Structures are given as structure tokens and as C-alpha cells.
């Protein structure tokens, strides 16, 4: 649907002023609203059509005017018409909706990543640079942000109405959602999946900052340790480095460069190593034995919190290249980023 941009702006401004319409604060929002207006149009037309038929027939064929009914069996032509036309309209809605769905759920490759852990009853956001926030999320304007989310207990659902995005946050698996904020300001984060007693109190605020303000914010609120550094510590303290030492003689595979690669497993299958795979391999190692290694790794189920898993995943991710440096730089612009240990960096 192509409305002239001027008209569109006017419409949106007017709707915002009337408080019957959410703000448009992400690159997705105008696309969602276009489809919304189209669907409203269909609804109104459909309702008017049905209403008009009922009204006209009721007036024309009421008993006083038309005392004896004429029996009509039906009409194949008419019935075909009102089968095919609604079908066609519904198919348009399907295609349009599907295009929007793929736009909303396929993040651009240059998106910066922030982790979100949902728990009864708070949102905990973790920036790769080590910034932690509860029921708050700071993001820069004009940059795609991808959220990698997981729940520590029950289903939650992460929703920012003004961005028109929402995704279920599920125990046991990572889900992702992305957005690019277009207007500075604060917006509601709602938990929209019923999650127990204080469900309606699980509200947060996303603050969109200009890139400069965002840089200031990251510098002020850094904890001094990036997620990857936390992960590195955890990696050592849990004894992971005893086997995953990176030597040729090691009992576990070398993890450097494993993130993003295709891994050959002992059962013959091949998997893409991503966040979800790494998390699962830590919790259920016996199901993910790398080809050439024996299944001796114990499960870490119940020993690491979701936050700790995120740290470990982030650490392994960064073993790939100087990815960590890039990631922390692009995310936080912090001048206290992790020092680069020589063995972690591959040219």
C-alpha cells in the first residue's frame, strides 16, 4: 500500500495525538501499521457489506411489503463469488503478513546483540560489555539491536508495543527478536505471557538514546567485566579448560573458531554451532559428542545459571577471532573493554 509520505506523516501524527494509537518508534512500526490499516479497511468494508445486505433486504422484504416469500434454492454463481473473493482477500492478508513476519523475525547481520533473561518477575538485560540492567534496556537509536532471550523459569513474552515487536521467552531455548529504534524516548516493555502472581508487574522500560548518549551511558554503567571475561573466569573455575585446553592431546575439542562453524558429530550428523547449540552442549553434552572424542563430558545441568551460560557462550563465541573485541566495541564503545589475551586472538 503506498500512501504519500506527507499524508502518512499527517495520519500518524493525528493518531498519536488522539491517544488511540501507539507511537511509531521502530523501523518495523510503519510496515506493521500499513498492514493494520489495510486489515481495518477490509473489516470495515466487510462489515458495511454485510450490514448493507441485512438492511436492504430487511427493508425490501419485510412482511408488510412482501407478504409471501419466493423460494429460491441457491445460486452456484453467487456462491462461487463469495467463496473466491474472500479467499483472494485472505490470501493477500496471508502474503502481506508473511512478508512482515520475515521482516520482523530475520535480524540483519550487522545487528548488535544484547542478552535478556526473563525470570519471575523481572527482565534482566546483559550487554556484552558487561552492563547489567533490571527492567530496563538502553539501546542506541538508528542501529539494529538483536535480543537473544531465555527464561529461567516459566514462559514469559517480551513485548515493546511502540516498536511492534514481541517474542515469547521460553525456558530451555534461546529465542531472538530484533528492532531498530527510530525515535529517542522511553517505551514500555511488557511481559505479555501470563507468568504467575506478579505478571502485571513485570514491566520494564526501554530507553532509546542518541548514539552519543548511548556511548556515555555504557561508560557510566559498565561493571568493568565484559560477559566474555566473566565467561572466561567461569570457564576456568568450572574446570572446563582442563579438557578444552586447545592442545592436540586434549580430551575435549578445541573451542577456538568453533562458533559459527559446521561441526561433525560422533553420530555422523552435522550441526551449525550457534548460541543455542553451545548452551545445549554444556547442559546435555552426551547428545552432542564431537567426532573423534569420547563421551566423557559431564552435564552441567543445574550447576550454572542462565546468566552464567550466557557468559560461557559469549566467551566461546569470542574465542573465534577477535570477535569479542569487535563485539564489545560495537556494543558498548567502552574504553574499559576486556584486555586481549594473546591465545584468544586468531588473526
Amino acid at each position, binding site marked *: 500500500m503506498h500512501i504519500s509520505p506527507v499524508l502518512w506523516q499527517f495520519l500518524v501524527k493525528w493518531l498519536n495525538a488522539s491517544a488511540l494509537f501507539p507511537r511509531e518508534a521502530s523501523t518495523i512500526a510503519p*510496515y*506493521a501499521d500499513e*498492514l*493494520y490499516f489495510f*486489515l481495518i479497511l*477490509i*473489516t470495515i468494508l466487510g*462489515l458495511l457489506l*454485510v*450490514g448493507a445486505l*441485512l438492511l436492504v*433486504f430487511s427493508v425490501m*422484504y*419485510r*412482511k*408488510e411489503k412482501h407478504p*409471501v*416469500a419466493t*423460494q*429460491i*434454492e*441457491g*445460486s452456484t454463481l*453467487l*456462491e462461487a463469488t*463469495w*467463496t473466491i473473493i*474472500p*479467499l483472494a482477500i*485472505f*490470501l493477500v*492478508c*496471508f502474503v*502481506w*503478513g*508473511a512478508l*512482515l513476519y520475515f521482516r*520482523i523475525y530475520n535480524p540483519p547481520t550487522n545487528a548488535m546483540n544484547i542478552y535478556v533473561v526473563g525470570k*519471575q518477575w523481572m527482565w534482566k538485560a546483559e550487554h556484552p560489555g558487561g552492563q547489567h540492567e533490571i527492567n530496563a534496556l538502553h539501546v542506541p537509536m538508528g542501529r539494529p539491536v538483536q535480543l537473544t532471550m531465555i527464561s529461567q*523459569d*516459566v*514462559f514469559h*513474552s517480551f*513485548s515493546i*508495543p511502540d516498536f*511492534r515487536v*514481541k517474542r*515469547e521467552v*521460553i*525456558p*530451555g531455548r534461546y529465542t531472538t527478536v530484533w528492532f531498530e529504534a527510530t525515535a529517542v524516548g522511553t517505551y514500555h516493555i511488557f*511481559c*505479555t*505471557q*501470563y507468568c504467575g*502472581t506478579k*505478571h*502485571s*508487574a513485570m514491566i520494564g522500560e526501554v530507553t532509546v538514546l542518541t548514539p552519543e548518549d548511548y556511548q556515555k551511558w555504557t561508560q557510566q554503567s559498565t561493571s568493568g567485566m565484559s560477559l566474555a571475561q566473566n565467561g572466561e573466569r567461569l570457564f576456568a573455575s568450572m574446570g572446563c579448560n582442563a579438557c578444552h585446553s586447545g592442545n592436540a592431546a586434549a580430551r575435549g575439542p578445541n573451542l577456538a573458531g568453533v562458533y559459527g562453524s559446521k561441526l561433525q558429530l560422533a553420530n555422523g550428523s552435522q550441526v551449525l554451532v550457534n548460541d543455542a547449540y553451545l548452551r545445549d552442549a554444556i547442559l546435555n553434552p552426551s547428545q552432542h559428542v564431537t567426532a573423534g572424542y569420547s563421551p566423557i563430558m559431564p552435564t552441567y545441568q*543445574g550447576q550454572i545459571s542462565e546468566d552464567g551460560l550466557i557468559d560461557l557462550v559469549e566467551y566461546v563465541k569470542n574465542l573465534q577471532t577477535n570477535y569479542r573485541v569487535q563485539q564489545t566495541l560495537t556494543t558498548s564503545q567502552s574504553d574499559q573493554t576486556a584486555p586481549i589475551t594473546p591465545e584468544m586472538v586468531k588473526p
Partner: protein
Amino acid sequence: MSATSSTILNLPDQSTATLPKKNYINAEHGLLSWLFTGDHKRIAMLYLISITFFFFIGGAFAGLIRLELLTPQPDLVASDTYNKFFTMHGIIMIFLFLVPSVPATLGNFLIPIMLGAKDLAFPKINLLSWYLYMAGGTFTLAALVLGGVDTGWTFTTPLSTHYLNTHVITAATAIFIAGFSSIFTGLNFIVTIHRMRAPGMTWFRMPLFVWSNYAASLLMVLGTPVLAIAIVLVALERTFGIGVFDPTKGGDPLLFQHLFWFYSHPAVYIMILPGMGVISEVISTFSRKRVFGYTAVAFSSVAIALFGFFVWEHHMFIMGVSNYSALVFSLLTMLVAVPSAIKIFNWAFTLQQGSITFETPMLYAFGFLGLFTIGGLTGVFLGSLGMDIHLTETYFIVAHFHFVMVGGMLMAFLSGIHFWWPKMTGRMYPESLSKLAAVVTFIGFNLTFLPQFILGYLGMPRRYHAYPPEFQVLNVLSTAGATVLGVGYLLPMLYLAWSLKYGAIAGNNPWQATGLEWQIQSPPLTENFIEVPIVDHEAYDYEWLAHKTQHEVTTVG
């Protein structure tokens, strides 16, 4: 009550008219004769009384919910109490009202008569269904009295299995038992419709009410066991921690969603299809015409039932299902909308060339058409993938399914109750009061639920006890509407009860309708027909009726 020129009311002379000396109501006396009856009509009345009871309990919770949401602050009750309110509202309204309402009351009463049979195929199982329903209801009330349950009617795991200390198992038992009531009712209908039709009552001479109940019965029999499985797994997981839904034990929390919605989406059609059957009967009668495209309407019921089984995943579009399975289920969802659209247009065109009058059942049916159209079309918003992301789990969903369930199904139920009331009781209800009730209900309904669509697009999540203050104006409107709606529901309750003693004697066929049920006395005899009827005409054959009436007059004269 005087018949104006616009009505087709055909009441007997009130000065001499009396109820038939012998009928199913006075055939036997005493409470036990009702509690051990095998008569489908008496069982229908038992259902009607118990369903009305649960409807008003569920409605009271709706009232409390709306009252709490009058202000953004959590000021009326505490969070967990509020959560128990909406859980009880959902469980009672869905499992104890919407699912059984039309089939168990109107369907039970009418299907055997419409087919020309003396009773359902299995009268004792029919009575057992009612006892199971009451047992389910008792367990629900027990859960309520013991301190309530706060899972929401969807019993989402792992919340329901690991994180709530309330009476989840009691409520689950209630649903499990009530489910069997539904399965038995469906089974009884299917066998009756296949085996007990009178001579000449071919499949395509059956009233559309029977067709739609047949389709709904298929869903009850095939879908409800899956709900039973899901509920049993929840109970096992909660009691023994078997871990099918627990990711830390290798289970999958999404599995529950699949199982639950595999029943609960078809359940929507279990609720709405019988209501659609009512609408077909009412619109045909009050426009004095055969339903336009009878065959298409009959088959669209079956099509809805079949497609209804293949759309459950549209409740999970944002839950991390694969993008491509989301595509498939979105497409299937669009397809299931088509038979509903067909029905709407067929009903509208039934009016064309008719001779229309606007009695109360017709007013409710018109209400149904308008509200169900909105409910159906807003369903397209939710079937449309990208839109669903923003709208799901908000008040838009709440508004959408209340438009379908309350605006559609409940309007149809009220239409049907008014339509067949003279047949069931032998007496008429007060006409002007009932028309007022229909109008009040329609206005109250729209005032309640239209604001919720806007709230939903603004992003107000469902099941919120407290909300940001900017949503208050719309919530106040909605609560005001709920008050009007409550009055609209109380009115019929009062005047229908009044009519039992003081209503005008209705006679056999006050609407001059064609169905077999209108050719016997009101209220009917226990065995329905004195001799087995032989059907020699199509459903809704008004020419046959005119001929028959004329013939009777000449014979009597």
C-alpha cells in the same frame, strides 16, 4: 400480547387455550423422576438449569475483573486473587458454559425430534453425560472453594506444573471429567444422526441445526481426548515430576502448547458451530424461506470442522516455531476463514425475496451476524503472521475471541432459547421485554469489547491486574459496557422464569416453522411422536407447510 401485522405469531385463543394434559414435564413427578430420567428433553432441561447457574458464576467473575480494571492501580483485590478471578472466569465459561451450552441444551432437546426419533441412541449415556458435567462443575467449585487456582484456563506449563501452589490438580480433574461429558454427548449425537432418522429423513433433508451439531460432535469426539492427555500429563508432571514438559529433564515446554491447542482450537468450533446451526433455523423461519444454498451451508460446517484440526499452531506464532511451519499454519488459518464467510453471505441472501418479521430470536440472530462478522474479520488480523506478532497476547485477542464467543455463540444461544422456549415450556415470553433485552445486550456488548481492540493495538497485555495509566479511559468504557451487558443477561433470566407460570400459551407452532419439532405438541410428549413420522419434503419447505396447514384446516372444518 397482541400479534401486530408485522409478526407471524400464531398463538391459540388465550381464553380457552391450555397446555397439553400429558407432556414430558408432567409425565412423572418428583425430583427423582428428573434425576433418573432417560428422556432427552428432561436431560436438556437439567443441563439448561445447571449451565445457566455456571454462566452466572462465570459472569460474576467477569464483573469482578472489569471492576478491578476500572482503575490502573491494583486496588480492589491482590494480584493472586485477580489471577484466580480470570482463571475461574475462563474455566467456567469455556468448559462449563460455551462448550456444552447449545449442544447439551438445545441439541439434546431438539436433535431427536428434528430427526423424527423418540430419543437419542443412548439415553442412559446421555444422563451419564449430565452427571459427568455436574461432577466436573463440582470439582471446579471445589477448586474455587478450597482457595482457587491461578493458572489461567490455558494451564501453561511449566507455570502450572512447577511454579504454582494452588489447586491445579483439582481444576485439571474438573476439566478432565467435563471433557468426558462432552465426548459422550458428541458420540450420542453422531450415532443418533446416523442411525435414528425417521423414514424419508435423508442427510440432505436434515435441518442445518443437525448438520452443525454433527460437525461439532466430530470435533468433540476426536479433539477432547487430546485435551485429556495433556491434562493427565500436567497432573503427572506436577505430582511425580516426570519431566515431559520440563527442559531441565529433557522435556519440551512447547509440547504442552501443541497438545493443548490441538484440542483448544477445534474447541472454538465446538462452541461456535452449534450456534451457527441455531442461526440457520432462526433466519429461515423469520424470513419464511429455505436457507440459501442449503448444501453449501451444510458442507461448510463439515469443512470448518475438518480445517479446524489443522490450525492449532497459529496460537504459537511468536513462540519460536520455525518460520516455515508458521507460514503453513497461517495459510491454513486463512482457509478456515472461508467457510465462515460463505455462511455469512448465505444467511444474508436467505433474507432476499423473503417475508421477514423481527421477533426476538431474529433480533438476536441479526446481532450474531454483525458481531460474528467483526469477530471473524479480526481473526484475519491474527492469522496474518506479521500482525499477529504485535496483537497476540494483548487485549486485541481478548476482544476478538469475545466477539466470536460472546458476540457470536452467546447471541446464538439466546436466539435459540427464545426461539424454542415455546416448544420447551409451552409458553411464550413477554415480547417487548425480550426485544429490549436483545437491544441492551447488543449495545452493552459493543461498548464492552470495541474499546478492547484499541487497547490491544496500543499494547495493553491481557491478564494484567494493573496497567499503565494511559489505558484507563478505554478500560472505564469497557467496564461501563460490561454493566449494561450484565443487565442484558439478567433480563431474560427474570422474564423467562416469569413466563413459566404467566406466559401466554404458545400452541404447537407459534412461528409457523417447518421443522418436525413444530409439528408436535408443546411441550412434547415423552415419546415425542405418537407415530413415527414419514418425511416427504425438504427442510424449510414452506410451501409444504402452507399446504399442510390448509389441509388441516379443511379437515377440521
